[in-house]
């Protein structure tokens, strides 16, 4: 299983989305989520949204190992 995290405004639209999923890449997770949660899917496809695996920014096609932590990150606004 892959653990999912949604930050910032993605957290609001991902309220009802699963927090554990089976998938081989972040892109596949995105497609699975988009099927059930169209607004979440739309926002995940915005080009500014980044994805991290085990807290490292990666490409959407990064292969996932079981137990990985995948986070979806809208543009940061700290400071």
């Amino acid at each position, binding site marked *: 299983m892959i653990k999912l*995290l949604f930050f*910032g405004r993605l957290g609001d639209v991902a309220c009802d989305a699963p927090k554990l999923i089976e998938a081989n890449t972040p892109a596949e997770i995105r497609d699975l989520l988009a099927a059930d949660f169209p607004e979440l899917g739309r926002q995940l496809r915005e080009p500014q949204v980044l994805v991290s695996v085990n*807290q490292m920014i990666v490409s959407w096609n990064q292969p996932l190992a079981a137990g990985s932590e995948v*986070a979806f990150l809208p543009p*940061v*606004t*700290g400071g």
Partner: protein
Amino acid sequence: MTVRIAIQREDFNLAEEYEWLRQISPAVGAVVTFSGLVRDFESTDGARNAIDSLSLQHYPGMTESLLQEIVDQAMQRWPLLGVTVIHRVGKLLPAEQIVFVGVASQHRAAAFEAAQCVMDYLKTRATFWKKVDQNGREHWVESKDSDQVARQRWAADD
């Protein structure tokens, strides 16, 4: 070289942070501090809207690594004696302190440039997200193009 990085709900005390930086070494000749405060309004499309509070969320673990990476880059680029980065999370009211960056160095140019560079990277890379509460209505803050531009000043190091 001494580094202190903290992500915390509690407020910080500028005087204590400064005293810590200035005593790092008798070679310290310059200390630059930056403090970010919560303004009482948000500018959206040229309009000023009063705000009631901010809520800061972050990605625990990843944020700490990213801040360490930003500080490491600054240390490679400038001869620094000490760096402190503190970022608050949770609910913050107008006039409260959000973020502190302090740099101690022998000379002022390194201290100024490193502090500004750390802030520009923090703004565009560190995993913090800000939500504004305006009259009971909440919204997430949009990222600013000007912050991306500010970071690109230091792009030689990317």
